């Protein structure tokens, strides 16, 4: 299999440069390296969530307290956050979400497909700006731009990191 990706390390640097101090997540394989980096860095508070919508509320609170943050989740978790995004929308909280995609490229688990296919539309339906990235070399620059749009542009932004990038699992015998 391919060597571990570099993009999480560059992305973590981009997040820190953007002033991210709180990183909320429900563990996801695609985010494993980024989570590890966040947990290992004293300058960042990494908060494991029991469910993704907690992270939307947490990051609203972070902004209220003067700090920037990012929410790491899988596309399935997007389904869990939709209602809570109404708070971010109504309060005009800047919000940065990094979403690792399932259900869109070589997916082996049919149950991932409905939410994977609905991710972009459901985020956009509540006013989130969605930016997709499907090649490793563009991930960090996309996250950097998204962070700028979120924290300086004052918007909710989600970067959808394509499944093609993540090394699709294949368990079929």
């Amino acid at each position: 299999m391919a060597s571990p990706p570099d993009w999480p390390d560059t992305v973590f640097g981009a997040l820190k440069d953007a002033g991210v101090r709180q990183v909320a997540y429900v563990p996801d394989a695609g985010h494993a390296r980024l989570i590890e980096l966040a947990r290992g860095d004293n300058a960042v508070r990494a908060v494991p969530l029991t469910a993704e919508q907690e992270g939307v509320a947490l990051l609203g609170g972070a902004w209220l307290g003067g700090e920037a943050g990012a929410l790491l989740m899988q596309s399935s978790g997007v389904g869990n956050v939709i209602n809570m995004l109404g708070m971010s929308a109504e309060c005009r909280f800047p919000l940065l979400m990094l979403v690792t995609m399932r259900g869109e490229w070589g997916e082996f688990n049919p149950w991932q497909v409905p939410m994977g296919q609905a991710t972009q539309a459901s985020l956009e339906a509540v006013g989130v700006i969605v930016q997709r990235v499907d090649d490793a070399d563009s991930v960090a620059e996309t996250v950097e731009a998204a962070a700028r749009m979120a924290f300086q542009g004052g918007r909710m932004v989600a970067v959808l990191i394509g499944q093609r990038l993540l090394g699709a699992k294949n368990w079929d015998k």
Partner: protein
Amino acid sequence: MGDQPEITLDRRAVVARILKGRADTLVVTGLGAPSWDTAAAGDRADNFYLWGGMGGAAATGLGLALAQPGRRVLVITGDGEMLMGVGTLATIAVQRPANLAICVIDNQRYGETGMQETHTAFGVDLAAMARGAGIEDAATVWDESALDTAAAALLGAPGPVFVAIKVTPAETPMVLPLRDGLALKHRFREKLLGKA
């Protein structure tokens, strides 16, 4: 959060032990390893394996238990999955289904995403949460000695019953059951309700 006892139970053996006396108990499994463990113990049409909807296993079991009061319903799931739907414990407690049992195979890890520690690794006590929610028959099993009693409670004690069984994070061979949701539904309902 204090010293934990040493954990030595093997998840595959634990689930096999629990299911040995299942008779016609209906089983719902949370996504990931609990599904493989259950399939490894022997695939049956009255196993409903979830492959998604994380956080929904216990609630699925509740709905089934309410629909089939004359049948025993056992949910076998993981700690991460249970945590994601932990409010369901309150929902279950209020309904007090006598025929529902929840078994959490607690390896204190998110097994499908890189074995990151869950909140139970940091002292969150799911059985105590269940008791707080109002599920009186709630316990944690740390070793072999309590396993037989736990299995008997899960399969037969007046519900709702909640047992968290601490197992090692050692990975076990994947035994992949049917993943086609429609097929799973049809075979489960046909077994339970007869042919349409």
